[in-house]
């Protein structure tokens, strides 16, 4: 990450006010400067930052630093609440009450209008059982119509298009007729990307608006956008009166402070966020999570949800039982690694954990490579070897080394790592999976060890 998180920034200035009972103008100045920089680095517009800081200062002044709380925590809390306040306290959904409901997508070039149109079409089909129609009104960019057509094919949602030789106004009015005749209850109009200062094109949008009378005009905004977002949002809002915004490309590593600016300038809710290139990568906008992200505080809720998404509970319980029985094998270790991997790049996960950003940067490629290597070694073993690694002798190891193209030393390293994790598992195996409390006394654990040795002897004899 190129940025320090707010909490890190504040740490230094906080040292100075440790032990003071109230927040005063004097002891807050440096802190507020830290907040200002953090917000600016998160691409929040500087006018917005200015007002924001003034508000925060007003609220924080004279606040008592309660009990065990540190002054910094109090300030961060105030800032966080203020952010949530600004971003909107409730989750806002689409207004689909009218039939047909018309949703108009507007924005700069390359902000992601067409992809978002496809995503919204899919979402309302699946979630609300609607029958949407996509309208290709971008007659300027080469192949924009093709793009929407391809998306429509992938989603199995009809696309209304008339090529690029007819005026956009004409296309949408024909599309409206088509939608009514074919009983489409939602019409999503994908307009061409345009600069907000391009008067003729802005006029075209107004014309389209007059024709389709949309219940939603969504401004699509790229989360990577910097300070200029206020001009864009202001201008689109002045011309069209937008009803909401969609923040795209949030799967990148930008802070997305633009969300704050858009909200501050236009006062419309942010309705959706785009979180990937796949057509289901769209999510409702949760103000508190966004506040965490802007502040660089980590996003625990999203992490937990992500874990729930990919973690297979049955699988985990199986592993857990194996741990308890002491039959945890190499296969199980690999399963665990795969489950971890499903969460996405390790560095991304760590970023979501509060307090973690201080960790040294983790090289995702290295972890990936390591996983690949472990995989290749384990897959070169027989089933028996995987569940009973102790049977691996020099000859077997040599065979495996040949099979996976690694050296025997690599295999030994993996076995050592496995032995360590098995030891750790053993200790953890004595914990109750529900309460996380020890179910056995450690003494009993000690008596378990000799048994395992006997087991090993038996196997040796078998060979």
């Amino acid at each position, binding site marked *: 990450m190129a940025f320090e998180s707010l909490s890190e920034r504040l740490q230094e200035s906080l040292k100075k006010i440790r032990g003071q009972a109230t927040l005063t103008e004097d002891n807050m100045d440096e802190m507020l400067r830290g907040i200002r920089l953090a917000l600016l680095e998160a691409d929040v517009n500087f006018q917005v930052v200015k007002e924001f800081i003034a508000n925060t200062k007003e609220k924080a002044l004279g606040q008592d630093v309660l009990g065990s709380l540190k002054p910094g925590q109090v300030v961060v809390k105030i800032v966080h609440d203020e952010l949530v306040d600004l971003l909107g306290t409730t989750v806002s959904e689409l207004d689909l009450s009218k039939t047909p409901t018309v949703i108009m997508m507007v924005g700069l070039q*390359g902000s992601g209008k067409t992809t978002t149109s496809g995503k919204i079409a899919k979402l309302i089909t699946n979630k609300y059982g609607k029958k949407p129609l996509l309208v290709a009104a971008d007659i300027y960019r080469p192949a924009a119509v093709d793009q929407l057509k391809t998306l429509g094919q992938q989603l199995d949602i009809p696309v209304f298009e008339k090529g690029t030789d007819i005026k956009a106004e004409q296309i949408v009015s024909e599309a409206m007729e088509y939608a009514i005749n074919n009983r489409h209850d939602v019409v999503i109009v994908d307009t061409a990307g345009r600069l907000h200062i391009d008067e003729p094109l802005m006029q075209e949008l107004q014309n389209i608006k007059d024709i389709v009378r949309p219940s939603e005009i969504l401004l699509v905004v790229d989360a990577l956008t910097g300070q200029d*977002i206020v001009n864009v949002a202001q201008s689109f809002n002045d011309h069209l009166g937008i009803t909401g915004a969609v923040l795209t*490309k949030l799967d990148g590593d930008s802070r997305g402070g633009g969300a704050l600016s858009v909200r501050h300038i236009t006062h419309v809710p942010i309705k959706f966020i785009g979180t990937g290139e796949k057509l289901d990568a769209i999510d409702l906008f949760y103000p508190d999570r966004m506040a965490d992200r802007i502040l660089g505080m980590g996003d625990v809720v999203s992490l937990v949800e992500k874990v729930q998404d990919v973690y297979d509970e049955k699988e985990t319980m199986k592993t857990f039982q194996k741990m308890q029985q002491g039959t945890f094998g190499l296969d199980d270790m690999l399963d665990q690694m795969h489950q971890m991997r499903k969460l996405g790049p390790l560095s991304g996960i760590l970023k979501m954990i509060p307090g973690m950003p201080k960790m040294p940067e983790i090289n995702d490629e290295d972890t990936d490579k390591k996983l690949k290597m472990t995989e290749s070694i384990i897959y070169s073993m027989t089933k028996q070897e995987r569940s009973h690694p102790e049977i691996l002798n020099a000859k077997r190891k040599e065979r495996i080394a040949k099979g996976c193209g690694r050296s025997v030393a690599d295999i030994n390293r993996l076995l050592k790592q496995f032995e360590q994790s098995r030891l750790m598992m053993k200790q953890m195996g004595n914990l109750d999976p529900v309460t996380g409390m020890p179910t056995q006394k450690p003494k009993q654990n000690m008596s378990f060890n000799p048994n395992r040795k006997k087991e090993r002897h038996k196997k040796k004899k078998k060979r």
Partner: protein
Amino acid sequence: MGFFNKIKEALVGNSAKQNDKYVAGLDKSGSSLSSKINELAARYRELDDDYFEELENILIMSDVGVSMVMTIIDEIKKEVRLQNIKDPQAINDIIVDKMFVIYANDSYMTTKINYDDNDLTVILMVGVNGAGKTTTIAKLAHMMQTEGKSVMVAAGDTFRAGAIDQLAVWADRLGIECIKGKEGGDPSSVVFDALNQAKEKGVDVLICDTAGRLQNKVNLMNELEKMNRIIKRVVPDGPQETLLVIDATTGQNGVSQAQEFSKITDITGIVLTKMDGTAKGGIVLSIKDTLNIPVKFIGLGESMDDLQEFDLEQYIYGLCKNLMEE
């Protein structure tokens, strides 16, 4: 501005011809610099903290990174103190000079494409989604055509719906060949085909489009690495240019983009697109500062001749326009 012009000539060579359109792109107001300075002087009697705060805000507004802004302001303050300047009229040259020196930072900058006279010149275009790679390719190809080069393009964005068609339409308009693969296919194979065909047909330049990718997507970045390897296999010195396309509206994330992309490929320059809007793309100053990657071209519109060589002086004046105007 005498001193300034000299460094500029030494570093980048002058190209006065282009300036008109450039100004039109950067400076919507069109008022001349001298009048701006006068207006500013009328507004500020002396160089006080307010003046510097205004300057700071203007630079931050232009997306110049926060720490970079602090450096610039500190440098200017130092210079003002050193020369004991109290008159705002005299400061504008210092602002521009200082920013120029910080940007140039003793490095060699060129806005020319590094053509290989003996081999195929391969240009790889990379960037995040929606930055304007495909449109920039069309503009670059057009520019090279007017320079008398024969150009071929490879539709390496096999991921985004309609991306191949988009490039094909441009290639048609320009009358150049476009090597296409299947949508959803392996982009490296498209590039490989294009390389071989370009060599066979003896064209001068091959420009490879790639799918937009956010810099934190490991797999996509690996794919880029593979394309790079493939190019090197056919053209050992290639790609002679890897251009990172950055949207002028991009904020602080631009540094992270440049950083991550240059880990994978050797970025030789930046194309700053969508400069015909109100965004200033000041993040390129931070990128130059942290990674030493210069801007080579800027995009000023949607038609094929809307690409221009980057002119630092014009650019910096564009950044400080508001300060000088108000």
